[in-house]
């Protein structure tokens, strides 16, 4: 099954071209890693795939549904981990996860399971504003996978995580989980290790699009020069 199919995708913010002429296709269960300097259009691409932004040109299909027309059909199958953790600072980790669980029709047992898996049960009653950035990221990861999505959209998912937390998150958002993934990364070695397909963006335009096995770290580093 083709999980992602993009053809000439473009998006502007006013006069500025945030994303232009992105075309690719990827099978389910695979990982696309997007590299590019700040402002290259990575987050815009994620938000379009998440149904939060409409493309201004081109077409796209996500999990077999044409967007934005059939956005309703893929909501609930997408897990988004963006720059913002999407957590209310005054609520505890558990309250936040229970809130999102109700929005997705997920049982509270799943909340407890994820808190346990991410070793957050002991801090689950504290308000999010009192947690460290790494702990907030763990809760955000739990939120992103709470509803067992088929497609994960991850913007620098391991940012702020210590090695132990990265190991805990691996079974949920790593390749081992078997989900289709789109990952935005600034880490050439780490990103390439996760990737099946690599997309390099610069000023919204694709300048590199190849299977990961054909891409070297030096090419990724060159994107940022």
């Amino acid at each position, binding site marked *: 099954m083709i999980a992602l199919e993009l053809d000439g995708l473009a998006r502007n913010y006013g006069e500025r071209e945030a994303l232009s002429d992105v075309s690719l296709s*990827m*099978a389910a269960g695979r990982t696309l890693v997007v590299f590019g300097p700040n402002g290259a259009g990575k987050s815009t691409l994620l938000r379009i795939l998440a149904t939060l932004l409409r493309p201004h040109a081109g077409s796209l299909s996500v999990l077999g549904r044409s967007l934005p027309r059939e956005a309703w059909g893929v909501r609930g199958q997408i897990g988004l981990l963006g720059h913002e953790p999407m957590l209310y600072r005054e609520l505890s980790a558990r309250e936040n996860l229970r*809130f999102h669980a109700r929005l997705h029709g997920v049982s509270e047992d799943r909340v407890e*399971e994820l808190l346990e898996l991410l070793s957050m049960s002991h801090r689950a009653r504290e308000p999010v504003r009192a947690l460290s950035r790494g702990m907030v990221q763990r809760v955000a990861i739990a939120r992103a996978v709470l509803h067992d999505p088929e497609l994960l959209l991850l913007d620098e998912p391991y940012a702020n995580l210590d090695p132990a937390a990265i190991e805990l998150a691996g079974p949920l958002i790593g390749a081992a989980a078997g989900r289709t993934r789109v990952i935005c990364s600034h880490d050439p070695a780490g990103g390439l290790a996760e990737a099946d397909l690599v997309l390099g963006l610069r000023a919204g335009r694709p300048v590199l699009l190849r299977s990961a096995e054909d891409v070297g770290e030096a090419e990724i580093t060159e994107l940022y020069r």
Partner: protein
Amino acid sequence: MSASAPQTQPPPVAMQRAEGVSHEPPRTSTVIGALLRKELLVELRTLESVPGMSLFAVTTFVVFHFALNRNSIDGDEAAGILWVTLLFAAMLGINRLFVADADQGGFDGFLIAPVERSALLLAKAGTLLAYLLVLEIVAVPAFALLLLAPPISQALPALVAVLLLGDLGVAAIGTLVAALAVRTRARDLLGPLLALPLLVPIVIGAARASSPLLVLSHPGGPPGRWMLLLGLYDLVFGLIAYALFEFLLED
């Protein structure tokens, strides 16, 4: 530029489905309940809206008390001061209604969930309605104490009906305007600029309906035609909010 990942090979690992996940959209009533619970929890923890609204209303009555240099007012004057004060106090709540969602990513969390968009409208309008009720529990006795000539007890049952009808309209219009304004850079300015003209008919209707209740020997209930106008206005803006809300949330 175009490329594809290898299509012929199967995925490296088959996806394992988690237990306790139904993959069915939740019922809208469950979603509204979850949203309402979240709103009230956040307000209870931050106390950002209701205390400010209440304090504003009481302070305004104190200012009127001294500015008018009178201990007691009644009739049109009393009704006008009451409703204009409630309107401006409500604006404080309206301006903050979606701020936590916009600033903390709650909008995105809601928008990618498989839920009816109208659930957010109903939950936010319900939240604003609850804020207004608490505001009035504080403001109306303060108004009676600081400014009102006739005893409030005689007017209270009918006044509650007018307040409820007025609140429903403020909640519908306020939620609609707040959702529109919060995504703009000038949200603090745009909210009142959009809301106040739309709320003027409610203030007029509610003040006219309240006026005969706030005199020493009022004839009974509020005037039916003003109550009808308030009810119709509530209904029309309730329907407009329902029809437009989804478009306001879209990109």
